[in-house]
């Protein structure tokens, strides 16, 4: 992965007309992270854990 490439996580990525070099963008005023800061119930994709005592995690 190109370390400076922000296009893949941009919501405009598939339709953006600004550049064909979508592997070289490190800064863009149009950048819009999809679903950033959305509600947890819609974005958090983590398996439900079984209840365990907190101490076991330490």
């Amino acid at each position: 992965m190109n370390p400076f490439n922000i296009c893949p996580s941009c919501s405009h990525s598939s339709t953006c007309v600004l550049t064909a070099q979508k592997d070289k963008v490190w800064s863009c005023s149009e950048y819009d992270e999809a679903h950033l800061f959305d509600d947890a119930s819609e974005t958090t994709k983590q398996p439900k854990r079984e209840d365990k005592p907190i101490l076991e995690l330490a």
Partner: protein
Amino acid sequence: MATLTAEIKKRSKKAPVRGMMDNVMEQFETAANKINLHPNIKKILSITNNEIIVNFPVKMDNGDVEIFTGYRVQHNNALGPYKGGLRYHPTVDIDAARALAMWMTWKTSLAGLPYGGGKGGIKLDPSKYSQGELERITRRFTFALADNIGPEHDIPAPDVNTNSQTMAWMADTYMSTRPPAERTANQHVVTGKPAGSGGLEGRDRATGYGVYLSIKFWAEKNNESLKDKRFIVQGFGNVGYWAAHFLEQDGAKLVAVQDASGSIRNSSGIHVEDLFNYSKANNGHVSGFPEAFDLDNEKFFRTECDICIPAALGNQITKDNAKIIQARLIAEGANGPTNVEGEKILLERGITIIPDILCNSGGVVGSYFEWLQNRSGELWQLDEVMAKLHKKLKESFDKVYDYATVEGIDMRTAAYCIAIQRIEKAYIQRGIFP
């Protein structure tokens, strides 16, 4: 200069990566050669001072614990505390932070600020986490960085996927780790905070206002008026919109806009506020604006105009389109919009470029004002902020313009020369410990 002549032991640190910073590195080399930068200072500026990597655990909403990796690279602090953004992105790594930190060193130096350069972030995809999780990640990252940041040492700011809320969490966490009597004296550990929590009035328009001022100063130097000047803007975000807003107030005419959704043109003029309102109601897109016609995207830079403002992303003006640009002035609102080959063609054609490092420096100057305001316990009104921005940016512009004129060089080279010379001077005056 005796203290600087000692041989500096060769070090194994990696130099900043090439790629997106190619242009910056090339400009650094050009300017370093132009000013005959002392080789020992060149060695110092070619590497970073400190590179901090922290791995820290955060409890997720479902009770699991995830380990995150955060970075902070501190490139140089010869002029003052490290300054630069924190980005949250899957591609963040030490190389990215290293290159961007170096870029910040030149930018703060040119702006005449008492800052050095830094950059950092966390390797993560923020869309995968809830707001509560992002808050805990941010707070734990701040705790992990501990005294590697501080209001007089290293002052982070928002960047990709971080915002005023992120900064508010960082400030609160950092302040909470201080002794009670010192907490409120540490609010300026970050900038870009919300206006109600120590942030600066007008911070949203600072960069765009700076772009507008750069154009205005250029017009004044050339005894020209902005009235009826036609301009085009690529990117209608914070920078593009505010630059267009202020230019229109001075009588200039917006004739074409391009954003991620497409391009529009109206040679009779596009009313900036109408377009802004349309864009707001249209998912932030300008395409389809009823008072202009949709334009083939490849024709955008061909538009007849006096001023071109690339305010979106890098590598937009290249050898492929530099020949067809009609503008007499390029004002770089974005970072790195003109590449080296494109710039060569533009300069040969007699087109002036106000370089990004100068043109979009209103943002970091705004950050400096926020820091000063917190540090001195003041609250500045919007008109005060704008007046101070005007004064500070005028100083920078005049220095670059006059240097370029006297030396017979382009403004970008002049800007880098000034930035690097300022750091060189500090090293010469202070010497190298011990």
